């Protein structure tokens, strides 16, 4: 048997052969560009948007959506899809508006219980190998039902403290920008630069492999679902503070918007393939799109189609970028 070594294929050994540029172009680039372009267009159409007040007005309502997108991102990173996040946020909103003011300890316990329930849902999905789409769809009815039992029709009053916290602002930099940047940075560093972040992503991509490397896959799944629940609660908190009251149906639209946000943000449903910066940018894109269409003056009836169209456009661009990258690799 020959012991000759494999002939070195040029360009594959030694120093990192790939041009650093390609590795720098992550999946987050396209959504970030899209968000910037939309923002630029909005400023061009209404210069007022660029002022601190304008920024706050435009961005503040997006914060709960961005949190919802991040929550969805953790679930998608686990290789699952969460169709219940909207109702979950609605329940959080109701608890914060109704239970918390009446009984602070009880309210906090309730919120903690919600996080635990999400963790349990993750365990159920992981241990029994259930399809997340349907489990979370079923649970969405449960969250909604509980919220309606607590608050049969919208109402309640959110405490001043929470309202103040959510409306936090500084004279120089709008508070919303501080919050967005901070949260994005923390989550991105955790998920993309920490070792446990890699384990979490790995467990979404190939749970068996991660288990064999000596990690608990169940714990990773629970971790991802707990993170999703926490960001769901944060989203509910911001919604509560911004609206001042409770409404079980408040976040129903977040289900599809958050999924769209993650996908536009460069995530895939294959598990483990998500980008935090991309997801935040994706959330901004799907959130700002409505405002942009409104500024341009698209008729109300056409807005749904226009949003769908832009979504398609972003994904087409991504597909094209993907092809180009692949073509370049095979050269």
């Amino acid at each position, binding site marked *: 048997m020959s012991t000759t070594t494999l002939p070195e294929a040029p360009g594959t050994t030694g120093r990192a052969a790939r041009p650093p540029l390609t590795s720098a172009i992550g999946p987050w680039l396209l959504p970030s560009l899209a968000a910037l372009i939309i923002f630029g267009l909005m400023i061009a159409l209404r210069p007022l948007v660029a002022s601190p007040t304008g920024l706050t007005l435009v961005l503040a309502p997006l914060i709960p959506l961005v949190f919802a997108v991040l929550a969805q991102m953790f679930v998608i990173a686990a290789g699952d899809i969460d169709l219940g996040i909207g109702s979950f946020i609605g329940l959080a909103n109701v608890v914060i508006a109704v239970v918390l003011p009446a009984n602070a300890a009880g309210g906090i316990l309730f919120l903690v219980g919600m996080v635990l329930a999400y963790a349990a849902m993750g365990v159920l999905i992981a241990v029994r190998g259930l399809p997340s789409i349907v489990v979370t769809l079923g649970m969405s009815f449960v969250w909604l039902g509980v919220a*309606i039992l607590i608050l049969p029709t919208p109402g309640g009053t959110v405490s001043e403290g929470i309202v103040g916290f959510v409306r936090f602002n500084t004279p120089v930099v709008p508070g919303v920008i501080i919050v967005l940047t901070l949260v994005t940075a923390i989550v991105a560093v955790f998920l993309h630069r920490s070792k446990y972040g890699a384990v979490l992503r790995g467990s979404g991509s190939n749970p068996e492999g991660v288990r064999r490397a000596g990690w608990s896959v169940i714990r990773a799944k629970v971790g991802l679902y707990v993170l999703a629940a926490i960001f769901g609660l944060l989203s509910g908190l911001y919604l509560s503070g911004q609206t001042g009251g409770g409404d079980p149906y408040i976040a129903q639209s977040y289900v599809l918007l958050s999924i769209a946000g993650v996908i536009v943000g460069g995530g895939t449903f294959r598990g483990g393939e998500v980008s935090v910066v991309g997801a935040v940018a994706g959330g901004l894109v799907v959130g700002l799109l409505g405002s942009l269409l409104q500024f341009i003056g698209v008729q109300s009836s056409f807005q749904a189609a226009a949003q769908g169209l832009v979504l398609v456009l972003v994904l087409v661009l991504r597909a094209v970028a993907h092809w180009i990258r692949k073509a370049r690799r095979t050269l």
Partner: protein
Amino acid sequence: MTTLDPTPTVSADKPAPRATAMSVLRHPAVPAFIGMLAIWLAIGAIAGRGLVETISAGIIIATFLVIVGIGQLFVITVGNGGIDLSVSYVMTLSAFLACQIMAGQDVNIAAGILIAVGAGAAAGVCSAVLIELIGMPPLVGTLAVGFALQTITLVYSGSVVGVASPALSQFTTAQIGPIPIFGVVGIAIAVAFALILKRTSYGRRIEAVGQRPVAASYAGTRPALIRASAYVISGAMAGLAGVLLAAYSGGPSLGLGTSYQLASIAVVVLGGSLIAGGRGIVSGLWAGAVLLTLLTTLANITRLSGGWQFIIQGALIVLVLALSRNPIARR
């Protein structure tokens, strides 16, 4: 029709009996049938009257869901994360189109049905192009098509409104004795599609592509084409359901399809099909549709509050899933 038993029963030594009582009980559709019977009998027991009429009304109304659900089942079974979120929009648009063509005249029935099914199929082609050609995730691609359809419906329904043909309306509700004709047609449609799925080479391809697209490709099928065809079928079935539902209620309305978006997914899973694809159970879908249809009635006659109704519906879906056995695949 023989359906495969999914459990790996090892019987290398003794020849496997084809259909013993045990293997019938292990069929994935069994839980749905048991659930259906339980709920039906519970309604009868609580109301103390109308046992036969209840199931006959339930079967008529479930038939719409069965028809949409079959399309959804094909899309889910063909795998690749397949799911069709456009069905509700297809239903509504088809209802408007068909009723305009029918204009309350019986001679136009064929034309009306044709246009509805054709429009649905066309929508399916659009989804297929987005998903298979551009490579969008099905969840996003079908939703984008749905948004576009919604806009078309909104704009179009403002200018024209038609009424369903009386004969077709009659057909959806007529009975021979206690037997609802439309319900029987629904069962016939289910049987036909079960045969297509399990006993034709096309159906085998659907399941094969859903299990392992690459393996199916090396075994002589074209996965992209097969998957595309599933979306066309789904669109066509949704179109058919749309016109029939419009006929049932006399004419179209804007909210006609809304409740079918998630219900069509739920019945596929309740019926024992795999949400990850590769195994479709049409008989189970039928039972699941009747189950889901009767479930709200059960909740209504027990006078449960809206909140509890949601909770029970959601918990039931999760419970059925958690108790059902799961072979290898999962999402």
